[in-house]
């Protein structure tokens, strides 16, 4: 078909804002080829924001779940794998005259100590 020759392809666009983050889907565009898509993606999606990387993926290369709630359902109790399932630890530690401790506290402590060490070196 003559007319179909003018049809661009659809590309999904993923932006990685910093290297500490994964790519995030921001939308789609049409382009004649992936290299053009990469270039237009920068201006169509990053006119104001900063980024370190862009992916463009031909739409037909994406396999997706349907929007079916059943696929994502977890009905039964899964507290055993969550922090909220272990609230009793606090009470148990108190029996040993110790406080409960969270992962966040440890991370903060580790990072804090590092910061102090850097200060000492400087």
């Amino acid at each position: 078909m003559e007319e179909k020759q003018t049809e661009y392809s659809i590309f999904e666009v993923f932006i990685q804002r910093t290297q500490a983050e994964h790519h995030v889907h921001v939308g789609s565009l049409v382009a004649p080829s992936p290299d053009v898509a990469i270039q237009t993606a920068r201006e169509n999606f990053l006119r104001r924001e900063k980024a370190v990387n862009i992916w463009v993926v031909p739409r037909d290369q994406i396999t997706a779940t349907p929007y079916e709630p059943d696929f994502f359902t977890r009905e039964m109790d899964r507290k055993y794998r969550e922090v909220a399932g272990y609230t009793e630890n606090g009470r148990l530690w108190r029996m040993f005259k110790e406080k409960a401790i969270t992962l966040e506290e440890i991370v903060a402590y580790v990072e804090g100590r590092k910061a102090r060490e850097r200060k000492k070196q400087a």
Partner: protein
Amino acid sequence: MTEDVRYARFMERIERGEKIEATDWMPDEYRHLLIKLIHMHAVSEIMGAYPEKEWVPKAPTLRRKLAIMAKVQDEMGHGQLLLRVAEDLAAPLGKTREDLVEDVYKSRVKFHNVFHMEAKTWADAGVIGWLVDGAAIINQAALLETSYAPYARVLKRICAEESFHMQHGENIILALAMGTEEQKQMLQDALNYWWESLLFFFGPKEVTPAAERMLHYRIRTKTNEELRQKFLDKYVPRIWSIGLTIPDPHLRYDEEKKEWVYTEPDWEKFGRIVRYNEGPKSKERMELRRTAHEGQRWVREAMIRSRMATAAV
């Protein structure tokens, strides 16, 4: 599943406040209403670039030149985002980008009345940025709650960028309002020219059957008149505060009814402008789109051909 059951389930989702996705089953009516609305929205962004584009080469300072370029660019960008949403909805009907753009100059899609009008002076460019965009922002903000998720997502991005447009328009207006007598007069003339178009922009007062169906599907959740009132709430005091006169002797706020009373725009005249593209600039701007699209089909075809050539290497 019979059609009735499907429909009933769909409406249950809508009423629960769930969002619909492009790949979900949806009633034909819902799809068609969305295509009509979003296609018109997309095309209005693209056609809306033209009145301001005319002032891009004439912007009177370097800063204004850069800002109005960025603003018109954003509008094309919004057109792009919205076209993609409309294209995905229209894909099952065999329609693509090429078709949706062609529809503009083949009069198969309407665009907002304001973009059929002339922008004769720099102040017109300012009023478009301030009040036309202001009206559009109110419209779009109300659509953020739409039941169609892909539309809601792009609207979020669009509204974020409109906040720059708002500041840009206000800045031009404030400079003129604080300027020479000639600049002030230019601004007043522009307001006189745009006022009626602005009131018409929100659509008829009564809830039309099509609007009723959109409310039914929660594609939109507010009526035209509610939005027009919100626009008047926000903008009339500001227009007055910078010393401008609104060209409507009957305009007043009715304290009892808690609503604005205004002279209605010429529904018939503007209706014809939108329906039959009879505005002062309709034909010229549609021609620009035709030239851009049809006149440069050779470019798009070439880019596809050379992709093939490159891929083959």
